């Protein structure tokens, strides 16, 4: 299977007041057609930068992005709309993502108008159909965003994204702002959309349980690097990278009663050379901060960026 979207050795640096932040360090990532790729990592790890790059909203310093084998740069240059029709976003704050002065029906028709799809009457029909597809009825057509709950609004945003029949949805913390019972409904809707329409999802979240539930594969990010990518069950049952291990134990500890050593998990300054996780890593040696970090395939379907991964897996510690 060839990748639907491929980020190939992407680098992206943002300038800030006294220096720079490396949001992506040599990131390589593939999303296959119809799959759900989960992307987890703490805040500031570069998850949203990847979402913006994939949406074509952010340029890259170096590296290449391929969509169905074609260069994104070329696609956006030749016909930006056709790319945007294939890749659609669902954002975190459902209310902020909609125009508060327009009705729901108008908002759902907007992408159809922008992309010149259908006639006035058929657009309205399509909008109603989309509303029903996401579990809302015709009666929501004339409502305004402030008349609806967060969960209903997120359904509207999903309907809006689906309006142009995309191949890929970029969901950046799309269920994080919702409370548990509503969250469950929206997760179910994403699963249904993926399975019924065959849309691929890049599902970004800091909630490991949510990502586990929905994803076929998971990529774990730390300070701009992809630490590890593997099948969901592999990540959860046999985490390889030290950061993945730390992340999973932090999440299960917060569930099962033991407390963590505060100092150990305090975020240190991220080094610019070598492995960014080295200062917090229990397996770190001198070589970690001097060697160049490479994202490599260590077994079928699993990629890891760690200089000492072979020693760690052999249990040398």
């Amino acid at each position, binding site marked *: 299977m060839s990748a639907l979207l491929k980020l190939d050795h992407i680098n992206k640096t943002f300038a800030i007041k006294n220096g720079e932040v490396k949001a992506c360090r040599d990131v390589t990532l593939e999303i296959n057609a119809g799959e759900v790729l989960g992307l987890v990592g703490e805040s500031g790890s570069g998850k949203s930068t990847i979402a913006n790059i994939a949406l074509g909203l952010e340029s890259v310093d170096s590296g290449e992005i391929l969509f169905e084998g074609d260069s994104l740069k070329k696609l956006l240059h030749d016909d930006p709309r056709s790319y945007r029709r294939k890749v659609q976003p669902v954002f975190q704050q459902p209310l902020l993502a909609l125009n508060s002065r327009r009705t729901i029906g108008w908002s759902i028709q907007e992408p159809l108008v922008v992309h010149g799809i259908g006639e006035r009457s058929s657009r309205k029909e399509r909008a109603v159909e989309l509303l029903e597809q996401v579990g809302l009825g015709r009666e929501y057509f004339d409502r305004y965003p402030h008349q609806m*709950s967060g969960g209903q609004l997120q359904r509207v945003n999903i309907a809006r994204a689906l309006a142009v029949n995309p191949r890929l949805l970029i969901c950046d913390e799309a269920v994080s702002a919702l409370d*548990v*019972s509503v969250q469950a*409904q929206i997760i179910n809707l994403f699963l249904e959309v993926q399975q019924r329409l065959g849309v691929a999802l890049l599902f970004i979240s*800091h909630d490991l349980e949510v990502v*586990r*539930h929905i994803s076929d594969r998971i990529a774990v990010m730390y300070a701009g690097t992809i630490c590890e990518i593997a099948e969901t069950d592999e990540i959860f049952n046999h985490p390889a990278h030290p950061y993945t291990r730390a992340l999973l134990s932090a999440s299960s500890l*917060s569930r099962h009663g033991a407390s963590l050593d505060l100092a150990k998990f305090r975020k240190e300054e991220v080094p610019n050379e070598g492995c960014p996780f080295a200062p917090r890593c229990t397996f770190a040696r001198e070589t970690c901060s001097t060697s160049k970090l490479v994202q490599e395939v260590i077994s079928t379907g699993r990629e890891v960026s760690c200089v000492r991964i072979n020693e760690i897996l052999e249990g040398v510690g």
Partner: protein
Amino acid sequence: MNPILRVDSLQVHYRGAPRPAVADISFEIGQSECLAIVGESGSGKTTTAMALLRLLGPVAEISANAITLADQDFLNATPSELRAFRRDLIGTVFQDPTANWNPARTIGAQVIQPFPREEHEERRNEFISYMERVGIDRANLRIDQYPHNLSGGMLQRAMIAGALLGDPRLLVADEPTSALDVTVQADLISLLKDLAEERKLSMLLISHNLAVVSQIASKVIVMYSGHVVETGTTEQVLNDPKHPYTINLISSIPSTKKARKVPLYTAISKGSASHGCPYANRCPIAIDPCHSTMPTLTSDISGSVACHRHEETSTLIEVQR
């Protein structure tokens, strides 16, 4: 020992709303104890907290038999007494970290403002040390920054640090960890547990994150549509829930033990009943009396539950973990 906080039969009614936002809730929190209120949005958990802090203003009508905190009467206090109580006795962590800071003032200035001028130097240093404890690096620089200079997670942590100033007796925390990453969340939970011990700090935790609740709370109240549907020790409520709503709430959370990619349990709301149990229309095991008669809270040694079928729920619905 006397409880720190005692709320007796609190009711809150927003003007113009068809039904009360909170219909009769009573609870007590002892020293160093943490009570959690859980429930979905609109269940009245935040309203309960804001009402007992008397922060709701004229849009809400509050009635209660008593609200006392550290032997002070919150119900009949004058506005200036209330301000002093809030400053000296309570630390508050509000839900949305970005909306609860004044964007035009530095975070240090906002946190220190309520205290008398002669204490400012001391409070400033105290704030810096708490900021370091909640994991904000370079706190001595951060204190003079504006809210837009900090990330959402940092603002939430700064709010927690600010709430701890002046040694409050009670911390009211409304979703204190929802915007934070798991690693930070784990840190914060252990910090709050330490403080409860060290400072004899009691806590009212409002959350829908049951993992966090199970970590710090010793007692739990489950609310649905303004009503208390179940109370008990955390272990009791989370491990052996009696009310169908509690069972379904636990079932709707994604967890490592559940099969992946299968739909999560949800109950679609069909509007709430005007008489009878507020949950009846969503309840999988509702029977006739549920739609006509309001169940009352029935207590036993382990807790209390408001359900007509509470004796049989555990045999009728299975908890999906």
